[in-house]
């Protein structure tokens, strides 16, 4: 592995790492984090550490962004569900059956 390749990979790692910090939307950040993880893994391969690179890809590029995206999905739906509650009482919704614009009648099960 030539120094030139290693240098390029290090620069790419630094650039993607900066991109992770500068991405403010958490959903997009998870994707950028994944790309950064891949760059980091390639750098590890270049430094003859393929074992660590495999762990890095498994955890940093696949599992962590997946968990982050799932958590964001949960939070977004949760806030969307919570929002109309301030204006509609759940029992009102249950009575007039207006499901199109109001909160579903989950009876406060969600938290």
């Amino acid at each position, binding site marked *: 592995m030539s120094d030139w390749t290693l240098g390029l990979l290090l620069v790419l790692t630094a650039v993607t790492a900066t991109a992770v910090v500068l991405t403010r939307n958490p959903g997009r950040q998870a994707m950028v984090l994944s790309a950064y993880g891949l760059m980091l893994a390639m750098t590890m391969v270049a430094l003859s550490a393929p074992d660590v690179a495999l*762990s890095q890809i498994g955890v940093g590029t696949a599992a962590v962004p997946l968990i982050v995206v799932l958590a964001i999905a949960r939070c977004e739906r949760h806030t969307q569900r919570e929002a109309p509650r301030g204006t509609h009482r759940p029992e009102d919704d249950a009575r007039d059956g207006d499901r199109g614009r109001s909160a579903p009648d989950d009876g406060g099960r969600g938290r």
Partner: protein
Amino acid sequence: MRARLTVLLAGAAMLVLAVVGVRALIHLPGAGDVAHPYGARAVAAAFHHATANAVMSVTLDQRGFDTLGEEFVLLAAAVGTVLLLRELTAEREEEAAHTYGPEDVFEAVRLAGYVLLPVTLLVGGYVVVHGHLTPGGGFQGGTVLATGLYLAYLAADYRALDRLRPPGVFDAAEGLGAFAYVAVGVGGLLAGSGFLADWLPWGQLGKPLSAGTVPLLNIAIGIEVGSAFVLVVAKFLEQALTVPEQAAEEG
């Protein structure tokens, strides 16, 4: 005021870290073919026990006890996550009537999921059982196996995934994997050499059955890590999907 103090403290800490770090780094042996006192001994010990992958020899043979600690850190983390996210199980069962699936996924992505699911599982299994020969091992293979399983969700839907991944089985497998690691270690005690000693026949370097206990420990870790990841992602997926249909449609 507080923000300035934070910046000041962080700056001071970073400065100390930079000075100490650079001082430590300039005295490191160079990368590549330079003889390294620890590396030379570790590689010799790995060859002595017929372990072709010297890294695996260090993590599972020479320093097997450290890895035991790491394995239980992961076990504790996974159990903690599953425990914290357990609350909405009742809700999930009520919502189970709805089919939640990635309905807006491109057909090409589905096809890729179908094609890659068996390939990924095969690669994961290969990485686990060849840990003592080639780069990889139980941890790496376990994560590949676990994340590969979730391609079923991408390719089909939640029900298909649920059938492929009965949580009870993985609950049991996670504990069993952790137990198996300790059991192999105790085997060393019974064989008279010591806890986590490489007490099985070492065999011939580079052969599938070589390196003594290392392949067994790799399989134990593969089962434990794979199950832990499956369970943790399952809990997160459950949380993401167990929202009444209406809210999901609005999203």
